[in-house]
């Protein structure tokens, strides 16, 4: 109770002192404001990148595993993977029958081709041969028209569903439905346009610049050694919770399909969104750490400014310290007084910094990427600014509290 009252009084005294030296307080506070803004923006930027990443890969699907020849994120020696045999359509069919309807299995093949509509040419679009189950595996649905159906796949129809960026590039504002485009040397009829899926995060795949065609037509048009090469198999779990068990089962079945002996390593990879997220988080962690380290320097400089001003404040008020001691102030009362003063300066700076950073974040959110300031970041910013104040004020405050009252009273 006594301590609480001391703290309240010390805070009041600190506020008076700050009001008395407005210009000096404002300049000192500026250093802290800049430091706090820098730290918050670093964290916000990291948060924004994470959000962008999540949005970009939303269409990959959190409950889908992808069986491929290669892992998405290669760890270690690439040469360990290059001699792996290809996956083919037969394996996809076998996997589907072995899973006995426990999951949706969708094989895909893909390649890059130039696509032409009248005089417009787009080079290097991603052409994906898939089945009607694509729309069950991934969340993206056609925006206009329809997706591929069983009939298209069975009868090797030359029809295609294009991404929004493809539509914009080839057709502009014209209606693409039932128009014919050339993919490579084959003509395909546009039957649908996918809704926007995003992507192209840090040079990653752009899901809006791809074209879906029936996998049978794909084999007919682009070969891929009649479906014996470059097949990826998507397996969608009935729920996100079932994913882990399914992954285990798929791994077992694939080993049987590949006729691997127990001692042999897998010669295929099972990929999922978590693989990407994990790799991304590793990179992001390092970036965030370096960013915080660099921005902490500016906060440190701000803290040094506060320490400097606190030394001035203590020297200036030597006589006041003498007076306070003569009427009964204990060393710790003096210590608290100056600590509160420096903590208040920093808390004020931190608060203004939070406001400024929030405004800047709102601007970033509008023009650059989806970013927001979380409560955790705000709480940290407040805690850090108080801590900087206490640390910066400590040495000057100790010096003030140790002054000899007689000498302090004589000080002019």
């Amino acid at each position, binding site marked *: 109770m006594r301590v609480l009252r001391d703290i309240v009084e010390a805070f009041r005294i600190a506020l*008076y002192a700050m009001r*008395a030296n407005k210009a000096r307080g404002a300049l000192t506070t500026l250093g802290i404001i800049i430091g706090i803004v820098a730290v918050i923006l670093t964290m916000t930027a990291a948060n924004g990148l994470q959000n962008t990443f999540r949005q970009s890969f939303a269409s990959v699907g959190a409950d889908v595993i992808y069986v491929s020849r290669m892992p998405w994120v290669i760890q270690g020696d690439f040469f360990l993977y290059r001699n792996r045999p290809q996956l083919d359509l037969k394996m996809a069919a076998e996997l589907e029958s072995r899973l006995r309807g426990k999951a949706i299995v969708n094989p895909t093949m893909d390649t890059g081709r130039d696509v032409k509509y009248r005089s417009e040419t787009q080079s290097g679009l991603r052409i994906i041969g898939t089945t009607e189950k694509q729309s069950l595996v991934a969340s993206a649905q056609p925006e206009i028209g329809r997706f591929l159906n069983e009939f298209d796949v069975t009868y090797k129809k030359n029809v295609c569903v294009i991404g929004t960026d493809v539509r914009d590039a080839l057709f502009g504002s014209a209606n693409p439905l039932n128009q014919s485009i050339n993919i490579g040397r084959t003509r395909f009829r546009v039957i649908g346009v996918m809704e926007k899926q995003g992507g192209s995060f840090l040079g990653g795949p752009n899901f809006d610049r791809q074209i879906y065609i029936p996998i049978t037509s794909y084999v007919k048009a682009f070969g891929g050694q009649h479906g014996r090469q470059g097949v990826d198999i998507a397996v969608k779990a009935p729920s996100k919770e079932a994913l882990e068990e399914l992954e285990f089962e798929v791994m077992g079945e694939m080993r049987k399909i590949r006729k691997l002996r127990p001692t042999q390593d897998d010669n295929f990879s099972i990929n999922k969104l978590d693989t990407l997220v994990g790799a991304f988080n590793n990179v992001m962690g390092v970036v965030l750490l370096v960013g915080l380290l660099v921005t902490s320097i500016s906060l440190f400089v701000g803290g040094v400014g506060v320490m400097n001003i606190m030394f001035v404040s203590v020297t200036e008020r030597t006589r*006041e310290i003498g007076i306070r*001691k*003569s*009427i*009964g102030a*204990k*060393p710790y009362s003096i210590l608290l007084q100056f600590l509160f003063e420096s903590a208040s300066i920093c808390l004020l700076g931190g608060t203004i910094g939070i406001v400024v950073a929030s405004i800047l974040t709102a601007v970033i959110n509008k023009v650059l990427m989806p970013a927001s300031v979380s409560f955790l970041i705000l709480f940290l910013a407040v805690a850090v600014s108080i801590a900087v104040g206490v640390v910066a004020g400590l040495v000057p405050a100790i010096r003030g509290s140790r002054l000899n009252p*007689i000498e302090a009273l004589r000080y002019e």
Partner: protein
Amino acid sequence: MTRASEDLRQPDTVAALSLRDVVKTYDMGTIQVQALRGVSLDIARNEYVSIMGPSGSGKSTLMHVIGCLDVPTSGTYTLEGQTVADMSENQLAEIRNEMIGFVFQTFNLIPRVSIFQNVELPMIYAGISRGERRRRATAAIERVGLADRMKHKPNELSGGQRQRVAIARALVCNPSIILADEPTGNLDSKTGAEIMGILDGLHDEGQTIILVTHEDYIAQHARRTIRLRDGVIESDEEVRAS
């Protein structure tokens, strides 16, 4: 002021403070300066004592020791039954807070805060509640006749008014002794007389007052005069009523 009224019932019988063979040596690097060379004296409750002496006589040092701003190098100092030597800095601060009321030549008010807050300050360090502080600070300021200046800052007041504030501040914690160090030194003689009038009044109410001065006519207000020279007591005598 319960303590003051108790004092009135038993004047001159209880020692407020006593010094025995107090020596104070200052270590000035190569040489040592003996400011007090064995001072012994007793001051009873409700006494009105002046300490006189030329500069360098050790009267400032004696005041610092009595005011618990400093501790003797050797000898004992007892204040209200408590031995001051060997006290920690915190204990000394408590003694200053509860038992001593300082009135300085240069007033020593805190410039940035109001008269009321200046007077309130010792009670903040004493841990007295807000309401009680308000009541006692107001009473003390009224006692020195500055009720209408409570919200003013010290630099808006005349020297005499500032010294009244200092007296009010010295009074609020009901000290055992009021220690006035040249209280009129920075004032003209008329204002100085007013300040001495207030101190006289406090003595009449039972307050123990120690006055450090080098002016004879100021010392005349006290009932007893102690003269220091070269760190020892030269004389200690009653002042004849003038």
